[in-house]
């Protein structure tokens, strides 16, 4: 088994699918000859040919509409949107078309597309290169939303997404592309080398959509996180001294409610961590679900730690980014309260 970064693991997933399925193809801005601005599609055009991996016009609405049409024909397109911030020009196609095609045609047509997009902050990208739009997709029934937190999951989840017959939004935390990130921005960057999740099989395997991972067992509180925040959570747990159980949701739709409920029922406390703004964020849905299903087991109020309710501000990235310090504080509050 080889050690891979998340970029390499994603590249490997695409390579495997281009290799074993002639109906899979990739297109998006700069993905062809150049291999994508984050190099995720590097070398794929050369290896699999112009027709399998090619550049698209700067037209996100066009990219998604075309992908839906291809999907309706029977292909499995994997379009890339260069930054998740730029999914919004394609929003109507995703919401009104991809998400509902199967339902409204009574199963005559469907859109087996996987929309890949780098997302999240922590790279000084400013307002329009840092956003986390997962909650607005989670609200749209008919779309699946997947967010890996490590190289092994990234490859397995991406292959599962491509093989899935429903439209999947596959959000890649770009802060994790080259190494884990625990939110300690003033310390040296870590690399994936040496991380057990960076041991990635070369060939085909899947990580099923809708199955959360218990990253750390614990007895005193449950932390729900995904993407970059899984790593922030590990650091925050260490800082807090609380014996917390950490759950990496991996996909928010489908959502692994059973794992969440079992954990919170066991620990009696729940802290939700995400990078997107708090108000109306996906944490709200998680809190409501936990409240509905675990109310009698709860020993303290559910806490949410999230980005502030402002656009992502360039100079204040680290004031905005929910780091381990804020999580540790929330964990301690959860313990002290009751």
């Amino acid at each position, binding site marked *: 088994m080889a050690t891979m970064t998340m970029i390499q693991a994603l590249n490997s997933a695409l390579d495997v699918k281009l290799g074993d399925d002639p109906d899979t193809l990739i297109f998006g801005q700069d993905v062809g000859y150049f291999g994508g601005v984050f190099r995720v599609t590097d070398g794929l055009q050369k290896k699999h040919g112009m027709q399998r991996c090619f*550049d698209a016009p700067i037209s996100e609405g066009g990219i998604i509409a075309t992908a839906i049409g291809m999907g309706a024909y029977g292909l499995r397109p994997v379009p890339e949107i260069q930054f998740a911030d730029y999914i919004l020009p394609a929003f109507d196609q995703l919401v009104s078309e991809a998400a509902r095609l199967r339902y409204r045609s009574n199963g005559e047509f469907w859109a087996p597309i996987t929309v890949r997009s780098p997302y999240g902050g922590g790279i000084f990208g400013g307002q329009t290169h840092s956003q986390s739009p997962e909650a607005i997709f989670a609200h749209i029934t008919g779309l699946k939303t997947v967010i890996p937190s490590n190289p092994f999951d990234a490859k397995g989840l991406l292959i599962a997404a491509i093989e899935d017959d429903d439209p999947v939004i596959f959000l890649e935390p770009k802060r994790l592309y080259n190494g884990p990130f625990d939110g300690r921005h003033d310390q040296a960057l870590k690399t994936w080398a040496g991380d057990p999740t960076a041991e990635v099989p070369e060939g085909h395997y899947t990580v099923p959509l809708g199955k959360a991972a218990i990253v750390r067992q614990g007895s005193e509180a449950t932390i729900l996180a995904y993407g970059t925040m899984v790593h922030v959570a590990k650091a925050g747990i260490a800082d807090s001294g609380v014996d917390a159980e950490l759950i990496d949701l991996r996909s928010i739709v489908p959502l692994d409610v059973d794992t969440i409920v079992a954990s919170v029922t066991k620990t009696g406390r729940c802290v939700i961590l995400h990078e997107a703004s708090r108000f109306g964020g996906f944490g709200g849905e998680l809190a409501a679900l936990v409240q509905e299903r675990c109310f009698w087991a709860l020993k303290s109020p559910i806490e949410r730690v999230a980005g502030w309710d402002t656009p992502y501000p360039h100079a204040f990235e680290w004031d905005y980014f929910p780091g381990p310090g804020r999580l540790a504080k929330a964990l301690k509050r959860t313990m002290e309260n009751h």
Partner: protein
Amino acid sequence: MTDNAVPLRLHIPQPVARPGDASRFDYLSFVPGAAVQRPEFDTPEPELREFPYGLIRVIGEDNAAWDPGLDPEMMRSGLRAMLQTRLFEDRMFRAHRQGKTSFFMKSTGEEAIGVAQSLALAPGDMCFPTYRVQGWLIARDYPLEDMINQIYSNEKDPLKGRQLPILYSARDYGFYSLSGNVGSRFGHAVGWAMASAYKGACHIALGYIGEGTTAEGDFHEALTFASVYRAPAILVITNNQWAISSFAGIAGAEQTTFAAKALAYGLPGLRVDGNDFLAVWAATKWAADRARANLGATVIEFVTYRVAGHSTSDDPTKYRPADEPSHWPLGDPIERLKVHLIDVGEWSEERHAQLESELTETLRAAQRAAEAIGTLGKSKPSVAEMFEGVFKELDWRAIEQRREIGI
């Protein structure tokens, strides 16, 4: 069902040269300047339909019809602003390499566009910029120190640390706020122009879009509205041949010119040498006269070349021949205007060298002043600013969240 004689085939456009190939620009067809005599600005659109396929040039073309007849002082102002823009960008690019900012983009080779248009249009007009027209601000003497403060996101950043470097906003200088979403402001230019017409005012709007971005729906929507309501606007496509690593063919250049996109909307389309300061000026003036006479919008394609990488994150030698910039057939806008001024006896190599050292000194002083305040991470506006400006008034979320971080 009929069987095709041949199986269908998917066409994927490819540029003529990749790294390792010889650089070529023979695919660009340039009809000589004489083919496009200057029409009256009020010529009806149906009589203007050859213009999208020609190339309006002035410098070195003996094309008296399009020569805007600028007085030498104005040409020298243009030269000065173009040169300052280039020096500024080189300096800020280095500042990025030294870790003083997170990001930067250059307009090398395209300086004539922002600068000539800035000088040709009136103070009350509004430009809806892209990230490659900072020459507009420099031509209007926007303080360099403020530009650098924004690039450094320091305590004196005029946009309070909220915006990415180079995405300026300078209302008093006719410079609308830049969004990171390319193309998203093109329609704002049309709306602003419509508002000016609605109010019976005299200001016109100038919208910029890159050739790659003409693929966005925003472009087509803006042209539709401009055409329907005869918006007093100039809609500029800066065709610099590359959109990051994608050549212009990915935006449709194999089929037609970008100026010709105007035809389907019933708008005049001019195709202009974007590296020719006088041609840029002349075309802008023509379109402005037309807009000011209530004859509506003009689409202008400036044919130019992106000499530098897309941004500090880009290495263009990965996708195009390394020597491609030196084969660009339309030359360097600064060099061309300089030579023109020398030819007409209004400039000299000595004066040019002196100007360059003067501008370098001004720039150095501005950079020194900005660095005294601080570079990225060394100085920033008060964190309280993070919560300001979401709404006109702070709502309870901002108040509570501010309190949570102790401010």
